[in-house]
């Protein structure tokens, strides 16, 4: 029997070819800034609490919500900086999930918080998410550009979402606040269950 040596070699070469594993979109060749901008948009970990924070800010009124446009992005920037200094803080992922539940519950109850607490909440969410996003940086990533990208997308997202939520609340009708509160209860429910996963061993 004639063995096709050439074909066999080609097959082995194809099977042996390495394939890239994409954990996060950090090496998309878009540059550190754009990688930082894209990273928070690739999962719900960032999107959910940011959305909840923006809705909560809208419930506080436009005057108070404006302050969050400053504290939240600064928190993201500072969070990235803290990761540079202390990269191994193990409590941050659990705190991140707890914040989804806390901010979601605050939205579900449409609570009006004192301004310092609103600002502190915004800053803490920013710090935690700046820190967690910075964890995705590799050795080849330009850290400053990446953290700047995360901060920029955080600023744009929170600004636009607060503006949309305020406009939605000011529209005619009485159901808008209920719809936003319902979305808060959904986010809180997701956060509570995800928090459970942080503490309990998988029941497999």
């Amino acid at each position, binding site marked *: 029997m004639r063995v096709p040596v050439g*074909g066999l070699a080609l*097959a082995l070469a194809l099977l042996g070819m390495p394939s890239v*594993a994409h954990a996060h979109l950090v090496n998309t060749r878009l540059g550190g800034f754009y990688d930082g901008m894209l990273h928070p948009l690739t999962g719900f970990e960032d999107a959910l609490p940011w959305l909840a924070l923006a809705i909560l800010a809208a419930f506080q009124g436009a005057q108070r919500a404006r302050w969050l446009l400053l504290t939240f992005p600064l928190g993201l920037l500072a969070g990235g900086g803290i990761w540079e200094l202390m990269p191994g803080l193990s409590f941050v992922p659990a705190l991140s999930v707890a914040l989804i539940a806390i901010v979601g519950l605050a939205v579900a109850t449409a609570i009006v918080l004192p301004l310092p607490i609103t600002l502190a909440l915004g800053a803490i969410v920013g710090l935690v998410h700046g820190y967690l996003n910075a964890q995705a940086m590799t050795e080849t990533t330009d850290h400053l550009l990446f953290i700047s990208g995360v901060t920029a997308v955080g600023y744009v997202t929170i600004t636009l979402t607060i503006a949309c939520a305020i406009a939605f609340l000011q529209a005619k009708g009485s159901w808008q606040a209920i719809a936003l509160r319902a979305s808060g209860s959904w986010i*809180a429910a997701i956060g509570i*269950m995800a928090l*459970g996963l942080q503490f309990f*061993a998988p029941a497999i």
Partner: protein
Amino acid sequence: MSKMCNDTMAAGTRRTRAVAGILLYLALGQSAFAHSGSAAAIGLESGFTHPITGLDHLVAMVAVGLWGAQLGNPAIWTLPITFPLVMALGGLLGVAGVDVPLTEQIVALSGIALGVLIALRARPPLWVAALIVGIFAIFHGYAHGRELPQAADPLSYGVGFVVATGLLHLCGIVLGLFIRWPLGERAVRACGAGIGCVGAYFFLAALGAIP
């Protein structure tokens, strides 16, 4: 004869090459995507379809919205806001691996109870309505929570099933708005009876009375 033999051999060689090519293609390694969409999308899809593909869950979720609409303000928004929060507590029990007995039976019973309440147009005090819905929400959440740790992306799974649950409530609320018209009110009560029948079917199935 010789030509026929050559043709048969050539066809055999082509088949062997085709099979080898298919096997090689199947064996080729594919990229693994942890966070760039695939795992999140799979988790989101499986979470979203979980309440929709289970008819016992589906009818109970719609029933919560229907009953809320039938009860009017403030139940129309209190029940759908309360339900996901209490459901999350049930989900915690599932995530923790706590063994809650009779889950399937009580999920089916929720369809019967809510269906009957809608069909009879029952109007208990708000706290009683919230208590009834809350107790059932724990069992529905528990059923979802059991599958959460096995999901490709648990957070996306949670987003999927909470959003699906909320949208089913919304369907119930929209259907329930027909109570403004006499015919619509009868139709809503008939929906309640139908939900009760579906619940009864699943209850009997959970007891093993229906194969």
